[in-house]
């Protein structure tokens, strides 16, 4: 670990103007500290935000919920309101990591966790995300866990969060606070970016911008489901995941929201699939047609080619389940 300064913040106001490029916020530390040990992250200063008063889940007005950035994954997943009205979010959280990690991991940290690309972690190999311009080890290497949508030749990494996929499907919004005290809101869907030719930038956040919380609007009508496809039944990142909310009225899709995980550099809102389904009959055929609409531009890199049919089939399976057809799903 590279030597660094450490400062604990007592209140959000303490941030002041002092935040600079070399700073990192420390929340649960489950991702950041790991990356610091590998010297993949080498902050000059750690600003420990874990004592800030951002650990509450409050009613957000209009039937929504306001989730503090420091609410742990466990607390959020087990909140009675979340379990009842946003079961998609609860399920996504519980599908992630392990109980021990979820007890420590925070809402803000989960959104900003970094990719699990093998080459990003191996500092002896080239990686444009670590060292811009160095090349991408995964492109012609092992890319079984990599992206099929929105990739660039610079980087084909995925964003690994489960929680964020649910939030994108639920139209959640992040509350941000800049070092000068100004605040802004951003849909979670717009928080993460595609790699383009700047794969080193995971998000659109400005230096020093703090996530203070996430706003969940009232849930849309319909059945909410999260399905995570993975190599083993726990403690594995998603190969593909699907978060969906489907409302079927008189056999037709009245409203639908879909997001994919494990397929792109960001949680992928499947708007093309949503559009294709709107007003259509809730049939297997239409579900597959919608998946095809979304995946028309998907591109495999060898090891991850299977993700294209897998995403297609998983989406159809989730929508089938959400539409109420019988079927047992894998744990």
């Amino acid at each position: 670990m590279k030597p660094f300064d450490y400062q604990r913040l007592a209140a959000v106001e303490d941030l002041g103007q002092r935040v600079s490029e070399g700073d990192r916020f420390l929340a649960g530390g489950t991702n950041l500290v790991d990356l610091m040990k590998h010297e993949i992250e080498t902050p000059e200063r750690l600003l420990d935000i874990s004592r800030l008063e951002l650990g509450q889940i409050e009613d957000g007005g209009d039937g929504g919920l306001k989730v503090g950035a420091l609410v742990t994954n466990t607390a959020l997943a087990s909140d009675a309101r979340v379990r009842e009205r946003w079961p998609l979010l609860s399920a996504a959280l519980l599908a992630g990591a392990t109980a021990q990690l979820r007890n420590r991991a925070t809402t803000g940290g989960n959104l900003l966790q970094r990719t699990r690309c093998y080459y990003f972690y191996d500092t002896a190999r080239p990686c444009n995300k670590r060292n811009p311009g160095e090349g991408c080890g995964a492109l012609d290497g092992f890319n079984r866990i990599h992206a099929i949508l929105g990739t660039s030749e610079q980087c084909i990494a995925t964003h690994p969060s489960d929680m964020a996929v649910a939030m994108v499907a639920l139209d959640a919004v992040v509350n941000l606070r800049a070092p000068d005290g100004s605040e802004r809101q951003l849909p979670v869907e717009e928080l993460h970016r595609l790699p383009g030719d700047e794969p080193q930038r995971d998000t659109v956040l400005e230096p020093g911008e703090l996530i203070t919380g996430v706003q969940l609007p009232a849930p849309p009508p319909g059945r909410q489901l999260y399905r995570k496809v993975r190599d083993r039944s726990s403690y594995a990142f998603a190969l593909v995941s699907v978060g969906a909310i489907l409302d079927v009225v008189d056999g037709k899709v009245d409203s639908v929201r879909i997001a994919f995980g494990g397929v792109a550099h960001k949680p992928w809102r499947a708007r093309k699939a949503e559009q294709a389904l709107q007003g259509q009959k809730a049939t297997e055929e239409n579900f597959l047609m919608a998946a095809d609409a979304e995946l028309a531009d998907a591109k495999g890199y060898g090891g991850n080619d299977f993700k294209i049919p897998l995403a297609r089939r998983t989406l159809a399976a989730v929508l089938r389940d959400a539409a109420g057809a019988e079927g047992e799903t894998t744990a």
Partner: protein
Amino acid sequence: MKNPAAIGQPLDRVDGPLKVSGAATYAAEHQLDHAPLVGWIVEATIPAGRIKALDTGAAEKSAGVVAVLTHNNSPSQVPFGEPDDEGRFTQSRAMLGSDRVRYHGFPVALVIADTLANARHAAGLVEVSYDPAEAVTTTGSDADEVPDELDGGLDPDVTRGDFEQAYSESEVQLDVTYTTPNQASAAMEPHATIAEYDGNELWVYTSVQLIGPAVEVLANTLKLDPDKVRVLSPYIGGGFGSKLGLHNEAILACLGAMHLERPVKVVQHRRHVFHNAPHRGNSVQRIRLGASGDGKLKAIGHESYMPRARGYAFAEPTGASARTTYHADALLSRHRVKTVDMSLIDSCRAPGHSIGSLAFESAIDEMAYRCDMDPVAFRLVNMPDREPASGQPFSSHDLAECLREGAAKFGWDQRDPTPRSQERGRQLVGYGVASTIRMNILVKSTTRIRLSDDGSLIAWANMTDIGTGTYTILTQIAADILGLPAGKVSIELGDSAYPASCGSGGSFGAGSSGSALRDACMKLREKLVDIARKQESLKDADFDGASFEGGNLVLGDKKVPLAELVRQSGHDYLEVDGKVEPGEDHEKYSQHSYGAQFAEVTVDRDTGEVRVRRMLGVFSAGRILNRKTARSQLLGGMVWGISYALLEELMLDERCGAFVNRDFAEYHLAVNRDIPEVEIHFREQPDTHSNPLGSKGIGELSISGAGAAVANAIYHATGVRVRDFPITLDKLLEHLS
């Protein structure tokens, strides 16, 4: 009342309380008078070549750094691999001995500092440039070197009868090629060592399965007198073959300690372990089977192709299953290797049978379907009456009964024999079976015991307990034979100062070290009886029916405490040595443990995700020494089997000869939630030839076959035969429309 510590009783682990309270000292935890310095390994980033330039200036100036050891300043060593005529565990394992890079991850420097954080940071400041050389890193069926011998001293090639003719004349034929990936042993405790050197003696606290060879390898590498080397390894957090020999961090810690004459600790980071400890090479296994129309095997052919690490003579006997499990008129088994510039390739969890059975028991299953026979029935009609490869009689053979009993207990007859015929919602359901067989070995072992005048017994051996329960079963053997409560017996292991033992490996530990202890205890009994005979007061006692119970020598209605007999001997204690050596029984008979394993899996029709729902094994491994630790061993092997079938794979990036998934987030092993209800049954049948205890090897038994049972269940569920392990969902998906 029966002694609760008697042989066979499910006695709790005697070292359990120490382990759960953190009081058992693992290698990195030994407390010395002075806190050791900490070393961090700097790994080569090319697979082969030479170090062109090394700049350690910045690292040396970094906070807390005491020394940076490289080939330029490390203590003199014997060149790697010498002397030629030694075995691989005792040949020099020189590190930092020259500018030559042997493989990706090979240590090019050791940074020694006051703390782990300082050492690790400074390691990143060492600048190395290389002259890379052409490297061979991958192997397939192009392997064409014939190894001198296979692990365990087996011949690379065995033929019985005329295979080609028997095969070509067979009514039913099968010619298939299976592949298994590179694998890591993946012990929970990473390889770790603390070394201390005072200019004369070297003390090494480490994590190693075989203590004797560890002393020799250090002496041979570091040019020391073996008498000046002491190796201690009292507790080991799993070895799985990767700790049979001493590994890189141990040599490096010793070099550091000798260079500085200060204690140095080196713990491999998890990412180091994948290259700085040995792994298992990938295998290509071509299997040809020929049978008559009624399902009798006529020809068994098995050809194995695997990598062998340059300069390191280990070749895995993957043909073991094909050579031992079924009868056939003709047998052909052949092993070829290809030399690669990769980190050491060595034993990994049941070398031979584990991945051999994965392929072979899958092929046998294919053949059963091809012959239109039930997979259990097919196996039963092909039981051998002698060992197929050697022609020797079996010391005992119980595979058929394991299969029958297992099938009945599992409910095999509930199964619709047609593949892809059972569904539960969106899940395809399948049942699979595999035979299990693993050789039983006896290794020379000695021990010393001492009975004190307070009636307590101590036994010493340089044996190790790698988490398997050795401390516990040895306690039971002594307690049972001498009629002592467990609390009166202490077992001292893991120190090179103790009598030479077999060590842990090859499932031979319990039987071999236990038989040596039995021998010592039986001799002590004689000694105690002799002392009693000399007592005037016991002149008329019933010596014919002498027995040992409750800490006493019992002679009819007379009881004499053992403590008193010690006092009467005129000594403070009685000491006896015991030993065991393989004899005629191991030359005349082919010895194995047996089992049959059954699995039920579901395969998701949408996603191809496989989940094991139920497993059952029936095992026959002679006399069971402790039902609880034995069950744990078998359970562990079945869990590994699930990993073999579904998960484990080191991904080798040929461009640099490195494994890319070097952590447990991406090197997948089964986790708790992957493990279903697992039932284990023993068919307890002491083997009169195996060893004086009648026990047989158990540690590697269930892993040999468990994976194939799962794979065969997947075929039954889906009708898809994946011949490239592990069976991940991407290999099934396209077939599940």
